[in-house]
């Protein structure tokens, strides 16, 4: 048996981009493999659940787990990996704050299933078949995990030791995190392994932001041209940078797109969306309600704008079904 520390990767409700970001280490992955044994990585290597179950508790130094938790199977795997790992790391926005899947919390499970299996324009499902948790035919029985009522971030299910934010986390963030974990000098439990300032701090366009943004209108990136040398927020495009943790190097802004907030808020903020909303609304130029409403019309989807990655773990959490 190797003396090297063991590391695992796992994927719950997410798009797979986080797994890609590990591969994005490119030849850096060789250094990782040199330093650790990867003992579980279903996306890339052939391990089975029973292999993990066979390990003693705490056998894995660290599991980097991406994706939100929204099914019975995911919850089981999360609990299993928690048991087997000394450190459980929420990797990426979905594990960290619920991510894009968390936006499903605006709807009930029934609404979601109904739309996906019956109502969506591209669905052909004449028998109105819905996924069942049990199915028996010819004496054989199969099981499917149950879809939960609500999408949860990892720490809403099990204890999480550290967080790596981002959709996905950038390779430099992962490299630093692995360095920290292997160095043995662990930060305090619960730490987010990224800077504590907001993105503006490292934004190349910081100096071009005026002192008084005084929003007169909001524009959407696909409907107007974004100038390449001026603060994007000041141009009236909703850039989440001021309310978003730094650490990505302002990559979206460098690609001339506004920050969408994937790194989540700084640790001091209880609710990223509420904070940004409060900040933006304080800086709206008109002072009379009808004109204010007109400005706000430029943000047609406030939840999707301000809570794009953080709805599951926000103060709002989910829509309570009144039906």
């Amino acid at each position, binding site marked *: 048996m190797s003396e090297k520390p063991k590391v695992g990767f796992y994927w719950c409700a997410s798009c797979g981009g986080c797994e890609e970001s590990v591969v994005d280490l490119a030849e850096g992955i060789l250094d990782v493999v040199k330093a650790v044994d990867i003992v579980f990585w279903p996306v890339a290597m052939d391990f089975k659940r029973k292999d993990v179950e066979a390990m003693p508790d705490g056998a894995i130094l660290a599991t980097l787990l991406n994706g939100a938790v929204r099914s019975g199977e995911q919850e089981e795997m999360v609990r299993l990996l928690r048991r087997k790992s000394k450190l459980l790391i929420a990797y990426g926005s979905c594990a960290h704050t619920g991510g894009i899947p968390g936006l499903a919390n605006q709807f009930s499970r029934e609404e979601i299933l109904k739309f996906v299996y019956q109502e969506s324009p591209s669905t052909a499902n004449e028998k109105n078949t819905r996924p069942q948790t049990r199915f028996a035919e010819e004496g054989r029985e199969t099981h499917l995990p149950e879809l939960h009522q609500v999408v949860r971030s990892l720490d809403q299910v099990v204890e999480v030791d550290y967080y790596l934010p981002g959709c996905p986390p950038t390779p430099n963030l992962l490299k630093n995190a692995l360095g920290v974990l292997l160095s043995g000098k662990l930060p305090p439990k619960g730490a987010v392994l990224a800077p*504590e*300032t*907001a*993105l*503006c*701090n490292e934004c190349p366009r*910081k*100096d071009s*932001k*005026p*002192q*008084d*943004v*005084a929003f007169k209108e909001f524009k959407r990136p696909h409907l107007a041209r974004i100038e390449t040398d001026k603060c994007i927020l000041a141009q009236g495009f909703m850039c989440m*940078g*001021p*309310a978003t943790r*730094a650490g990505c190097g302002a990559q979206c802004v460098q690609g001339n797109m506004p920050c969408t907030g994937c790194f989540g*808020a*700084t640790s*001091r*903020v*209880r609710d990223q969306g509420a*904070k*940004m909303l*409060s*900040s933006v609304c*304080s*800086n709206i130029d008109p002072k009379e309600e009808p004109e204010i409403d007109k400005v706000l019309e430029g943000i047609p989807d406030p939840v999707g704008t301000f809570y794009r990655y953080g709805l599951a773990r926000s103060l709002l959490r989910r829509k309570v079904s009144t039906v």
Partner: protein
Amino acid sequence: MSKPVEEIRIGVYVCHCGTNIAGMVDVKNVADFASRLPGVTVSREYKYMCSDPGQELIRQDIKEHRLNRIVVASCSPLLHEETFRAATAKGGLNPFFFHLVNIREHDSWVHENRQDATAKANALVHAAVERVRSHKALTKKQVPVNPAVLVVGGGIAGIHAALTLANAGKKVYLVEREPTIGGHMAKFDKTFPTLDCAACILTPKMSSVKSHKNITLWSYSEVSRIEGYVGNFEVTVRRQPRYVREDLCVGCMECIDACVFKEAKFPNEFDEGLGKRKPIYVPFPQATPKVAVIDPDRCLNVKTGKCKKSCVASCDRGAIDFTQKPEDRQIKVGAVVVATGFKAFDAKRSPQYGYGVYPNVYTSLEVERLVNASGPTSGEVVLRDGRHPKTVGIIHCVGSREEHTNRWCSRVCCMYSLKLAHLVKEHSGAEVFNFYIDMRTPGKSFEEFYQKLLKEGVHFVRGKVAEVNDWVLDPSEQGKLVIRVEDTLLGTVRRIPVDMVVLGVGLEPHADAQEVRRLFNISCGTEGFFLERHPKLAPVNTFTDGIFLAGCCQGPKDIPDTVAQAGAAAAEALALIDSGHVELEPNTAYIVEEECSGCKSCVPLCPYKAISYVEDKKKAVINEALCKGCGTCVGACPSSSIKQNLFEDEQVFSEIRGVLADV
């Protein structure tokens, strides 16, 4: 976030406030409830917590039970927060480990169901018990006070405040927008009800201002910028070019005689346009400073550059200087007295009275100039067409107590209309009618003055005048102005033909009162006059510490009240200055520098201009001395890098948890 290591030991005190609270809230129940909350060591109810024995209870319990947090459930913090902070401090605790719960104004006084009111008191106490755990020791900061005072406005209010302060040995800057101080009072002939000569009592004060060693008088100047905070204001005063050097001009007026305009042909503002002046002029003989001024809109040289400039040649002191430019002066003061006065109601806004249509309709201020011995007619009441009026009608409440113009009573119009009735009658022998809605004579010797007028044979018609016109229905009305009025005492509509109509115009805020309000960061009432901090108990204070109000900018008032208020404002400014320092509430916001991303979201939001962006650090910074703790920036900081003492997130969230705990 550092967790307190000490054990939290909370003392809760529920006040009966006699029956004010106990009458609607079961205080015993509240105290029992609190005693069961985690962390509460002592919980008591007491008849009057604010009494000496009540405060003593806190002090003793801190010692005996080693309390380190205090919650008092009583009245509004406006009343007794300081009392209980002091009691907490007496017990040896930092006063900011105390928190007040208002179960009187917020509970017992506004509810009618004892059970509900008690439940609410419990919830509020629970919230405080949760919040007070995360309180921190804070200290009040002391900031030294600059002993100089800025007085804005050189009417009688500003003059009196400036002299009072200067006589107390304080450096005073008096800034006046017009070329001379004196304000409205300088235009009056006599003052009611004593009929003493306005100039005789005012001009000595004006010259005292000019000669006082502690007063710097800047006329023809305006405050353009004010920054800083109580005790330490930095003010920019813009001095307009008068094209005559104040340090050289002695007011001999030879330049005026020498002006290329041989005739005075431009309306003199000081005479309400009834007299004429030249482009270079001194507004009136006792103008202070007595320095000529050149009207840039009238002077040929300023307008066209083409003039032989005989004025320059005539001045052997070389005082005329066409190269003058607006000049900004920076001063530092500890307090500001705003005494910017009022504007007379524009009578054209009540077109039914024919002002501006019929030449013989005058405003009261114009008549003040007509009856004034030093006015354009040397006190002779002559109409614009040169005739002497035989009958005069004085209409009260023009632009006062009216739905369509101003709703308020301007307080002085009844009395000055009586005064003008007396003066016009005295100067012209005319028959005088006063048209009033109600006769308001509530001041000292005012009613007696009214009685005197009644005896002098002035006619009084009780009724709101409907219209003034020159339509002749009867030969007796030929060539006259007809006042149509319902005489409510006779119960009939009358037509009274007169030669002259005087409109008793009301007082209203200056047209630029809103800009001035913003400049000094003070508030206006609904009618637009500057708002005092408390109508009864802080009548000359504003909501901005260190800025005081005097005179009609706060609301219409007569000269005695104005002078009294100016004295009060001066006294408040003195009290501030002589204390040597100001104590600042520690409920201020601060930016955690290493956490600030420099996004600037907060910078424009601060109503007190306390936030600035430091370019070299690329971070925002809050001047805590300026911060009033309103929390606007705290809410708006998108990365929660701004914290506010006494309102930290943890404190607010725990308060919310507490108040909802039993729901």
